[in-house]
């Protein structure tokens, strides 16, 4: 399943969260991929074998899998998953050095905690940032956004289409549940050109 040679994955604008339940439906109106999270390691292997398109994984949330460099190598080399969310900066950098996209997961409950979460994370090509909860991103100062390595993913508590669109104006990618992604796709089909542009704009690679 491993690509012969990694070319750095490009994030889709939307990742739909897959927790191992009903299979995810990728709405044609969205440029979407799948994020595997809160899922058993066996289900990860099955999903990776059967899915098409860009796939990402929240390494810290997989039951039965460690969140270390060996696990990252397994998901990249054996399963062909090139986008890895991790709370460990050295794992994110390891993924980036191997040609994948390593996304350091920062918990942003308040500004002090966000600063601490990002402290000491080196700027490395292929390393970006996941901000949880994503809904907080529109409330950050421009100077705080500038501190975050890009690409940036908004992850968590995006429960409304309006919240997702607000984030997409600021960052490269949002993680949504299937119901919110479907609603966003409906909005894209029925709305004005700017919204469609927001959903199809190619995210910055680095």
């Amino acid at each position: 399943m491993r690509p012969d040679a990694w070319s750095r994955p490009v994030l889709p604008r939307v990742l739909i969260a897959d927790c191992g339940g009903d299979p995810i439906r990728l709405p044609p109106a969205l440029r979407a991929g799948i994020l595997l999270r809160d899922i058993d390691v066996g289900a990860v292997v099955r999903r990776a074998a059967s899915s098409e398109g860009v796939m990402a994984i929240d390494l810290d949330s997989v039951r039965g899998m460690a969140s270390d460099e060996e696990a990252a190598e397994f998901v990249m080399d054996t399963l062909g998953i090139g986008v890895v969310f991790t709370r460990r900066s050295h794992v994110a950098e390891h993924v980036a050095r191997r040609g994948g996209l390593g996304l350091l997961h920062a918990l942003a409950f308040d500004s002090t905690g966000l600063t601490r979460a990002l402290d000491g994370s080196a700027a490395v090509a292929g390393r970006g940032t996941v901000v949880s909860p994503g809904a907080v991103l529109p409330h950050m100062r421009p100077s705080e956004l500038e501190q975050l390595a890009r690409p940036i993913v908004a992850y968590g508590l995006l429960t409304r289409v309006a919240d997702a669109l607000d984030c997409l104006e600021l960052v490269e990618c949002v993680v949504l549940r299937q119901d919110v992604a479907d609603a966003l796709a409906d909005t894209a089909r029925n709305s004005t050109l700017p919204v469609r542009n927001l959903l199809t704009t190619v995210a910055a690679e680095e």
Partner: protein
Amino acid sequence: MRATGEFLARLERSRCCAAIVSDEQLDLALASRTPIVFVLRGNGLALGPCIRRIHDAGKLAAVHLDLVNGVRADPRGVEWLAQLGADAIISSHGRLMPVIRNEGAVAILRLLLSRRTHLDTAFTAVSRAGPDIIEVLPGVILPSLATIMPDFGVPLLAGGFVRTEADAEDVLAAGAAGITTSAPNLWGMYAA
């Protein structure tokens, strides 16, 4: 119960409270109209003088057990902070809520929300812990959660990224009883 009543009565005087991480911020908070000072940093073993200054200024002191240094988040740590005079003790550890209450302080459970699944499990966790008050973080997103937030049956504080008057007004309109913020421009605002 009396402690909680007094705490909420103070909050009604001004619903935006100071959250401080430094001595400089303590000075500013003491000079402001904030009725309660939330202490988020410092040496928990040596907070006595800080708490006395807060009391001398006619304010209440709420100490974050999980964030101050030197004190373990366990029953003895709670006992220590209560002996120093903390009027309220904040923790993410639900099991400590009854201990805090037994010490005569207001028990504030810090609820960190990053995923919707946290909301799904929070109700049971809160019911089991029995806090007097819940602090939700990041509080600034409270308005967007209004339709999916369970009714916890206790007052809510909102903390985290609340920096502007517009943020504060939205959060209070979404049902928060009060706000904790490090933004001095908001301290002491919004009498109920």
